[in-house]
């Protein structure tokens, strides 16, 4: 490991020749280059997303620098595919700025209204946690970044409006993160369960089924239970780990954990 010290001794730097000749020459050289093509992008008429800038960006020296593919995973306005949204609430949970509110959209049954994210772009910090968390890939981020409004309320994008963005087919962030390999599962603290069916009812992916569980034999002297006990069983391959079941459980008998 070479660790010789680079000493930039300011005492040793010689004073410039010819007073100011060098900077004048440099500026003149730059002037000559930018006479041909300044590096300005004439914004409302040209845009960086344009195909000609996607392949290369001309900078002033006339030397093309390939910084294309810049836009592939840009994080701009979200696009929401309303049809595939399963109302799992993960985006709202994962939002660090609490700018996502789940609002009811038409299309759900009256018992379980379909809830989709409504995003307030006045609060969103474009971190992309929500689209990373989305298990169905229906909430993605597009390359749109122009969001100037005159009223604060216009910054709130309802699910329908986000769906509108989706339908515009803007370039979308293609990177879908792999789910972690050893995710925790939903475990049941069985003695606490009262079999209320709330978790199975609210599960967005319907991966919880209530199975009849034979209760332990009654102790001597007790009456055998009359009702049939049901307990939730989670299908781990379908589960998106949204935690809805945990939050609706009245007895707090579901929790995260690894299968023993």
């Amino acid at each position, binding site marked *: 490991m070479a660790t010789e010290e680079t000493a930039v001794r300011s005492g040793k730097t010689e004073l410039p020749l010819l007073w100011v000749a060098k900077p004048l020459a440099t500026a003149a050289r730059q002037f000559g280059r930018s006479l041909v093509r*300044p*590096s*300005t*992008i*004439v*914004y*409302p008429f040209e*845009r*960086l997303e344009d195909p000609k800038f996607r392949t290369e960006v001309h900078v*002033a020296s006339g030397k093309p620098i390939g910084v294309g593919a810049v836009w592939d995973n840009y994080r701009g306005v979200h696009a929401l595919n309303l049809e595939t949204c399963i109302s799992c609430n993960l985006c709202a949970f994962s939002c*660090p*700025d609490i700018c996502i509110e789940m609002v009811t959209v038409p299309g759900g049954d009256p018992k379980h209204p379909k809830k989709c994210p409504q995003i*307030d*772009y*006045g*609060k*969103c*910090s*474009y971190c992309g946690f929500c689209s990373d968390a989305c298990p169905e890939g229906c909430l993605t981020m597009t390359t749109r*970044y*122009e*969001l*100037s*409004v*005159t*009223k*604060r309320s216009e*910054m709130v994008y309802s699910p329908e409006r986000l769906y509108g963005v989706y339908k515009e087919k803007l370039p979308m962030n293609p990177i879908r993160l792999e789910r972690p390999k050893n995710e925790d599962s939903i475990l049941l603290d069985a003695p606490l369960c009262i079999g209320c069916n709330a978790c199975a009812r609210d599960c967005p992916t319907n991966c919880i089924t209530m199975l009849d569980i034979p209760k332990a034999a009654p102790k001597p002297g007790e009456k055998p239970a009359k009702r049939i006990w049901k307990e939730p069983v989670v299908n781990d391959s379908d589960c998106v780990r949204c935690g809805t079941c945990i939050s609706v459980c009245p007895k707090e008998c579901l929790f995260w954990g690894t299968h023993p």
Partner: protein
Amino acid sequence: MTGTSTTVVPKPRPPIEAAAPAGELPMVTQPALPFFEIETLRAEQFIPNAKEALGSMIAEQAQDKLIRPVFNWAGRNSLFPLHWGLACCAIEFAAAFGARWDAERFGVVPRSSPRQCDLLIVNGTVTWKVAHKLITLYEQMPEPKWVIAMGNCATGGGPFRTAYSVVPGVDKLVPVDVYIAGCPPRPEALLDGILLLERLIQERRE
């Protein structure tokens, strides 16, 4: 003369030898006004009113058709923002004046003194400690002036809005004309906001 009810036409002079009703004293008649006097009176009454009406009409028309468009055109094409960096958005604000985006194309030139500015771009988090200084700066700018809240912190406190020291939105302090969402907005988004403001100014009727 529309709508002016103040025009006073001299009362019609009663006939000189009008038959007085019997049993009543003959009316003391007014002397006849000479023509010249009447005309003077009319002119005194009429011309200022006409002048005023005509003047206001011309002024209105001129303002609608000439002065206001010209002023709005000028105001929209030469927005001088205040050279003031608050936080993260200030870097993108600077980048918008950099070589690649060059906001000077639209005549947007930052000035350091609020006296010479007509656009306050609040580019970052406003804390309570700086709030009154922001208001002072806003008040130091001569009319007409505009405010752009750039980025989420200026719009509503952004990620820091729960904190104890942050103003949740600069619109609590000064009137905001254009909000630009983004954290921070790209320089293009800032230019887009400025163009939106230019459209607003163009349609402005003071």
